[in-house]
């Protein structure tokens, strides 16, 4: 009880700090210099309509590279954590507990058929979101997540299906590598690391525009999708143990 009270006290103190932040906050009337620059220059510099995408892929591309890396790391570590090499064998108590679990109920007909129908659609939608990232809301991350959910469905419908883990891994690594290489290309051919002007900017607002942004987004999408999928696959494999 004392601990709860203490925590409450601490949380309330944090609340006081936050309230000070809130009190000190006043919404901007005008865009600040940075935002103003983005608002006015994005179109001409990157050719992307979706400023957020432009920022993510180009201006703050380094962040995004890090972000992608976070997912890569997470996937790799999830793999490491779950691989049996570490920490020895599980103690009997836990595995017994697992053995006592009832086997998974058979997947319903509906789900199975639904999956077969839905997965292509989902994948298509994902691809769309990715490719149009520089024009409309969405992009590599969202699209990647959608791709992964397709994979998820596949897994759910048939838990025992072995999906090419190797393929996912290759996609994951290749797209990551491609991202880095594109960045370096920017360094070599254009104004700096991850500069999108290595490709022509094209017509503003069209699909094939905004320089390398769509290309990068495609790789990001692939990579994010692959990461999620690999995480899910790794988790799914645990069941078989």
């Amino acid at each position, binding site marked *: 009880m004392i601990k709860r009270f203490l925590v409450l006290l601490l949380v309330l103190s944090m609340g006081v700090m936050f309230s000070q932040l809130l009190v000190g906050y006043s919404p901007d009337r005008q865009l600040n210099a940075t935002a103003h620059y983005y608002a006015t220059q994005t179109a001409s510099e990157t050719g992307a309509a*979706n400023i*957020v*995408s432009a920022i993510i892929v180009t201006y703050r591309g380094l962040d995004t590279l890090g972000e992608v890396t976070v997912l890569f790391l997470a996937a790799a570590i999830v793999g490491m954590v779950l691989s049996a090499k570490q920490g020895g064998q599980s103690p009997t108590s836990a595995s017994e*507990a697992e053995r006592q*679990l009832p086997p998974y109920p058979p997947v319903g007909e509906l789900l199975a058929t639904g999956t077969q129908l839905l997965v292509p659609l989902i994948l298509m939608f994902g691809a769309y*979101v990715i490719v149009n990232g520089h024009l409309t*809301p*969405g*992009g590599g*991350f*969202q699209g990647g*997540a*959608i791709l*992964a*959910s397709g994979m*998820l469905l596949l897994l759910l419908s048939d838990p025992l299906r072995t999906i090419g883990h190797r393929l996912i891994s290759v996609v994951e690594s290749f797209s990551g590598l491609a991202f880095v290489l594109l960045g370096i290309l920017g360094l070599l051919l254009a104004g700096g690391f991850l500069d999108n002007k290595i490709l022509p900017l094209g017509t503003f607002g069209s699909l094939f525009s905004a320089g390398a942004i769509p290309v990068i987004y495609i790789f990001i999408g692939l990579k994010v999708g692959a990461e*999620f999928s690999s*995480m*899910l696959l790794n*988790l799914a494999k*645990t*069941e078989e143990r």
Partner: protein
Amino acid sequence: MDLFIRDNLMLAMLLLLSLAMLVAAFMAIYSKRSLPIAMLAAGLVSLLASVQFLLLGAPDVAMTEAAIGSGLTTFLFFFILGRVRGGANRD
């Protein structure tokens, strides 16, 4: 005038959403008995947040939050929960 109504409408919606989120958050924290409910509530918070993002003029964020925050995360939770089922009650 039109703008005024729209603003107020948005304000009301935001408030409502916020309220709902807080309730859901409390559920996520306070649902003493059921872990799945807590997870669902957390997912709900995320989902409501994504709606709010939309209202706040951030469609990109909204999409991401919906797909990742409420979708994948919740799924991951349940996935793990399935693996460790019974663990919670044992202690």
